């Protein structure tokens, strides 16, 4: 059960990672009408259209992570402590803090991309998206390394 939930958590996180990365790049560097490069096409999306999906994926990933965390605390953390992986536990601690803070930002993030505020080029949209992108990337990388830590660097 825990393994299935962890895999599902990872899959939702991958979708979230892609969506928020597209949106962040589009928010900061709007593309020209006919992008020619890969990077140009990558950022050539309508960023406001991603907001609903990102909120849904973020909530889904956070809830799945919150369930998996119960198994982690009982079955995995004692082993990491025994093997003195203090840095990994510290980074994971930060992940849970950052994810919670990001959760609190979701209503403001969602509103910042809604019309008519998005039409007025709401100045909070790009910074909020960037913070969420940082949190998602942090969560993904830390989660991935923690999941593989018994093989990673040992």
């Amino acid at each position, binding site marked *: 059960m825990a393994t299935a939930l962890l895999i599902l958590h990872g899959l939702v996180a991958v979708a979230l990672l892609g969506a928020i990365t597209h949106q962040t790049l589009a928010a900061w560097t709007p593309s020209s009408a006919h992008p020619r490069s890969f990077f140009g096409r990558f950022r050539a999306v309508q960023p406001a259209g991603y907001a609903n999906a990102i909120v849904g994926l973020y909530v889904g990933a956070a809830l799945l992570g919150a369930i998996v*965390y*119960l198994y982690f*605390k009982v079955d995995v953390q*004692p082993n990491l402590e025994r093997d003195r992986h*203090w840095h990994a536990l510290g980074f994971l601690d930060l992940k*849970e803090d950052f994810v*919670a803070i990001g959760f609190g*930002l979701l209503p403001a993030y969602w*509103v910042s991309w809604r019309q008519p505020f998005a039409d007025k080029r709401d100045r909070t949209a790009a910074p909020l998206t960037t*913070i969420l992108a940082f949190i998602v990337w942090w969560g993904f990388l830390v989660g991935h390394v923690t999941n593989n830590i018994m093989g990673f660097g040992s």
Partner: protein
Amino acid sequence: MTSSPAFRRFALAFGTAFAFIYVMARFKGLALFTVYPSLGIVLLGMHRSRDVADPVLDFLAPELFWYGWTATAILGALVIGSIAALLPAGWSHRFWPGWVWVAPVLAMMACVYLTIPWFRQ
């Protein structure tokens, strides 16, 4: 899709307050409840296993505060966000919208500070 100015006030106040209250809850130990996953119980308030049992037995009943801290922040931010939504529209001009992204950045920096003990072991 549109959203009302009242909901916008709620969202901005909620995001700012959440970041602030979460850090305060983390710093002051203000968890709404404590979860003991190995025992399958939830206790109101913040309880540490080591306060009632020998620290070497801590692994038998690891406690989880994160859910409680998050619940505290949600509750507090809901109250402040609701008050902001009920305020007259003119009041929102006194609130700099940038706080909604400055506050979480500061909160994340505070969390880094609170996590330092892990890196000193």
